[in-house]
C-alpha cells in the first residue's frame, strides 16, 4: 500500500509559529477524527457526535475550526510547543513538522507490531524575523491568506477520497483509531518534527513523539 504524502509550506514570523501549526494540524485532524465508537452486539456500532469550535488567532489574521476536544487540543499544543522550542526563539530557521496517520498491524511473537503509515502531512515552516511593526502587520495579513490557501489545499486532498482504513471490529479498533480520548476518536497518528538550522545543514535532532507506546517490547 502506498502511503499518501502531502507537503505544505508556510513562511511565518517567530511568534506566529504556534498558531500557524495549530491551525493546519487541527484542520487536518478535524477531517481525520470521528465520534467515539460504541460497539453493540451483532457487530454493529454507533458513532458519537463531534463538536466543533472556532478559534481566532492572536498573531495572524486568521480563524480556523477545530474539533471540540480539550484533550486533543492539549496534545497538539504540547507537540507544537516542543517544535517551537526546538526551532529556537527569535532566530531565523527552517523546520518541518509531520503529522502521520498510521495503522497498527499485529505481528506474531516475537516481532513487535508494525506501524504502517497511510497518510503523512508534512508542514515545512520557514521562520523569518521582521524589523518593524509595519512589516509585522503586513505579515499578519499575508500569513492569514496563506493559511487560508493551505486549508483549501488540505480540503482538496481529503476530498479525493483515497485510501482510508477499513472500519475495524471491536477487537481491532485500537489498531486504527486512537481511543484514548474521552470525546472524539481520531485515527491513530503521530507527530514528529525536525529542525534545519539557517545554514541548511540538517541537525539530526529528530525527536519522535509517540502517542501510543507501541514500540516497547
Amino acid at each position, binding site marked *: 500500500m502506498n502511503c499518501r504524502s502531502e507537503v505544505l509550506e508556510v513562511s511565518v514570523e517567530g511568534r506566529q509559529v504556534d498558531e500557524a501549526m495549530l491551525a493546519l494540524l487541527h*484542520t487536518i485532524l*478535524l*477531517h481525520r477524527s*470521528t*465520534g*467515539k465508537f*460504541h*460497539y*453493540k452486539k*451483532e*457487530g*454493529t*456500532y*454507533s*458513532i*458519537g*457526535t*463531534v*463538536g*466543533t*469550535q*472556532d478559534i*481566532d488567532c492572536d498573531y495572524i*489574521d486568521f*480563524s*480556523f*475550526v477545530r*474539533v*471540540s*476536544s480539550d484533550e486533543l487540543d492539549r496534545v497538539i499544543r504540547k507537540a507544537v510547543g516542543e517544535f517551537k522550542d526546538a526551532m529556537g526563539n527569535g532566530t531565523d530557521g527552517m523546520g518541518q513538522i509531520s503529522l502521520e496517520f498510521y495503522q497498527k498491524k499485529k505481528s506474531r511473537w516475537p516481532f513487535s507490531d508494525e506501524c504502517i503509515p497511510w497518510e503523512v502531512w508534512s508542514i515545512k515552516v520557514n521562520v523569518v524575523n521582521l524589523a518593524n511593526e509595519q512589516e509585522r502587520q503586513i505579515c499578519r495579513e499575508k500569513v492569514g491568506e496563506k493559511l*487560508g490557501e493551505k*486549508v*483549501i489545499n*488540505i*480540503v*482538496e486532498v*481529503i*476530498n479525493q*477520497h483515497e485510501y482510508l482504513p*477499513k*472500519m*475495524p*471490529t*471491536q477487537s481491532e479498533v485500537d489498531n486504527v483509531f486512537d481511543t484514548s480520548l*474521552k*470525546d*472524539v476518536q481520531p485515527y491513530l497518528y503521530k507527530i514528529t518534527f525536525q529542525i534545519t538550522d539557517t545554514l541548511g545543514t540538517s541537525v539530526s535532532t529528530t525527536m519522535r513523539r509517540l502517542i501510543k507506546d507501541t514500540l516497547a517490547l
Partner: protein
Amino acid sequence: MMDSDLSPQDKKDLDKFIKFFALKTVQVIVQARLGEKVCTRSLSSPTGSDWFNLAIKDIPEVTHEAKKALSGQLPGIGRSMCVEISLKTSEGDSMELETWCLEMNEKCDKDIKVSYTVYNRLSLLLKSLLAITRVTPAYKLSRKQGHDYVILYRIYFGEVQLTGLGEGFQTVRVGVVGTPIGTITLSCAYRTNLAFMSTRQFERTAPIMGIIIDHFVERPFGNMGHMRPCNYRAPGEDEGAYNGVEDSQEVCTTSFSTSPPSQCVFTVSKAHLKTPKPAVMDTLKVPMMGLAFSHQLYCSRLSYQPPVLVGAADFCHPSTLNAANPHQMGIPGKEGGVPQQVPVQPCHGAQAEHGRVSSCPPADHVPATPSSSGEGAETLSRSIEVKGVSPCDVLETTFTRKVGAFVNKPGTQVTTASLDLPFAAFAPRAYDLEENDPMVQPPESPATSSPLQGSLHSQGSGESGGPAQDDFVMVDFKPAFSKDDLLPMDLGTFYREFQNPPQLASLTIDVSSQSMAEDLDSLPEKLAVYEKNIDEFDAFVDTLQ
C-alpha cells in the same frame, strides 16, 4: 448483469441523506456568517439527532427558509440549492459577496454503499465546509459586521446565478461525493473585487428614518426578511407534495456494521422525537445571539433603518424567486444582546424592514447626544425628508424610547416624525443668549430650610441643622472616622454643607412641554450649528473609534 438499480430502502435513505445534508449545509454557511464564533460540544454517546455525527445546531428560522426554498424538492441534476451571502451598508447599498452552490451532476457511482460510504463522505464534506467557510473573504467581513454594514443571506433553488459577484470572482470547491444517482458537489464562488459598487444597480434611497440609539440598546431579534403571522403553518405541513422523507422532526439513529461492509445496518428512526414541531413564533424567541440584528450606530450617531429597496424585486432575482428577500443577521462581535420577539408582520421586503423597526426593543438606553456627531446631523436631516417609498407608511411607526439608568426623565412616547433631541438643553441654540443659558447661569439653588445650606463657602461647623429637607432631623452629626480638629472643613461640615445640592438645571426642564412644532422649527437652526462644528464632531467620533 449486475443490478445497478438502487433498492427502495437505499433510495429512501439516500434521499433523506441528501435532504438533511442540504439543510445542514445551509446551517453551516449561515452560522458562519452571523459574525460570532461557533462552538458546539462533542458527545461521546450519540443522541440520535445529530446528522452526520456532527454537532451542528439547527437554527429553526434558517431551516424554515431552506425548506421553503426547496419546496419539497431535493437538489438534483439541474436543480441546485444556492445560498447567497451579501453585504448591506447603513446607507442601503448592497453587494453580493459569495454564493455557495450545492449541485448534482450526472456522474453516478453505482457501486458505492449508500448507508455507509455516502453517509461518511457527506460527513467529511460538512467538515470541509466548516473549514472553508472560515477562509473566504466574507468571513472576516461578517465578523466585523454591525456598525456600518450587515450580512444577509438568501436561499434559492434552481439555476445558479453568479452575475452579481462582479468580475474576476474566484471559485473554491469544497468537495464532491459520488452517489448512485449522481455526484454531489459543493462549491463557493466569491467576489474578489471588493471595491464598493455604486448604486447604479439599486436605486439609492434615503434611510427610512433615523432612530437615536446608543450603547445600551438591546438588539432586537430581527433576522427576518419576512415576518410571520401567528397562524403560520409549521414547516412539516409544507411538504405534502414530497413523499417519503419527513421533515426535521426525524432523527437519525445510525448503526454501522463493521464486517463486512455489505452487512451495513442502517436504521433511521422517528422514535426519539425530541425536537418539537418548530413554530415560527416560538423560534423567534430562541436565544440565538447571532441572529439578532443590530441596526444601530453607537453613541451619538443616528441609526439607519435599512431602506426599502425600490428595486427589491430585482435584487431578489424574481426569475428564481422562491424564498424571497435577504434575511438579515449578524451581531457585532463584542456586544451582547438578547433577541427580542419580533412583532408579526405578514408582509415582505420593505414592510419587513418596517416590522423590524417597530420591534425596537423595550430596553433601557440613554438617548445619544446629538452634539457629538456631524454625521448624525446629516442623517437627521435626511430622515426629515423621508421619501415614502415603502408601501407601508413608515412615518407612522412609533416606538417607545425608554430612558436609561440615572436619567431623571420620564419615558416619552415619540413618533419618528418628531425626533426631539435628547439633552435638548445642551444643544447650542443660536438664538439663546448667554444670560439665559442655564449652564452658564445656574438657577438659584432652591431655598432650603436648613440655615447651614446655601452657602458653598460656609466655614461653620458643628451646628446642628434645623428641619432638613429630609424627614429625619439631624441633631448632632459625628461622621465616622473623621476628626474635628485637623482642618477647618472637616468631613462633617462638608457633609452638612453639601447635603442638599440644587437640582441640575437640565433635569428640571420638562421636555414634554415643548410642542412638536417647536421642535421641528428649532431643528434647522440646530442643524446649522452642527454643520458649523462638523470638524469638532468628527474629531470626537474618531476618538471613540
